């Protein structure tokens, strides 16, 4: 309850343009949002850029949050930023077809060219299809309920349940195999 009140206070401060409140928001959510971006891109540099973009966007967008679950709202923005990145990457790869393989190695093949050590989970995650990987990460990092995730993705709850279940079961098999 106190946590919720604290969050409400931070959100109100952000809406009033208070830099300190935004700083608290960064402290609270940067780790989870970064984890989401990193697990989906496998690239720290790209994740850095997306995280920066997210918080700059929040400065503009925070006024449009009208209550309800803040984390659902936040991760909807996070998910949109990730999709914008995918679209931009797709356009870039179309424009620079000659350099396609190089670009893909930089942005779309998670982990392959990343200078960071790639953990086992990242490697196995890359074996799942993109949509399943995304919904699993959304579930894990947003901490939203299945009902909320279904709403975020505008799909029936049964579809979300089935996709997350199949994806996680396969991931577990890959990790234990």
């Amino acid at each position, binding site marked *: 309850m106190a946590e919720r009140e604290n969050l409400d206070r931070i959100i109100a401060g952000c809406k009033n*343009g208070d*830099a300190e409140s*935004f*700083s608290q928001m*960064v*402290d609270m959510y*940067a*780790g989870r949002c*970064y*984890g989401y971006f*990193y*697990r989906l891109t496998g690239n*720290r540099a790209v*994740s*850095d850029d997306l*995280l*920066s973009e997210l*918080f*700059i966007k929040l*400065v*503009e967008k925070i006024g449009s949050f009208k209550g*309800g*679950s803040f*984390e*659902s709202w936040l991760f909807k923005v996070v998910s949109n930023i990730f999709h914008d990145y995918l679209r931009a990457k797709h356009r870039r790869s179309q424009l620079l077809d000659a350099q396609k393989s190089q670009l893909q190695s930089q942005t779309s093949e998670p982990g392959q060219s990343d200078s*960071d050590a790639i*953990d*086992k*989970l990242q490697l196995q995650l890359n074996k799942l299809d993109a949509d399943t990987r995304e919904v*699993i990460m959304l579930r*894990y990092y947003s*901490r*939203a*309920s*299945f*009902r*909320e995730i279904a709403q975020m993705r505008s799909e029936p*709850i*049964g579809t979300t*349940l*089935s996709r*997350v*279940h199949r994806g*996680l*079961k396969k*991931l*577990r098999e890959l*990790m234990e195999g």
Partner: protein
Amino acid sequence: MEDQTNENIEELFERFLPDEDARHAAEDIQKAEEILREHPAPEPAGELLADINSKIAEALSAEKAKTRKLTAYRVAAVAAAIIILVAIGVRFFEKGPAETQSPVTITLIRQAIWESEDISADQAELALLTDELEQIEGEILALRLGEDGGESSREFIELEMELTDIGGDFWKG
């Protein structure tokens, strides 16, 4: 809205699967999520967070400047609208309908006659008035035709006095 802590995954699966399968599905999810917890993603670097905070500060001041500019435009627009409305209002009132005045009515017949209910007495008075008016009319006509044989100005003065007397007597009742 519920979050994960209040969510009963098994119950959710029971809507789509037999009880036993629903229990297994819920267990699959819990075990796999445990694997995710055991393999945390890297944390954002401290420099990155400091950079984000400074970018936020810049974005906030840009946002405030934008808000101030918008407010100034709105105030200017409202002021312009008020000035236009006032100008239109002033023009309208300048050209507006003239001040209404109560109509002036002139009557030769005094109020007492209108209000009286004694018809026969009123008829006699009106007949007398009509006779006197006809007599005056005749005298005026004679003066115009020069039948009086001169001294027109004196005749006019007398006629005028006579009219004044008739009017005075009549209004006195």
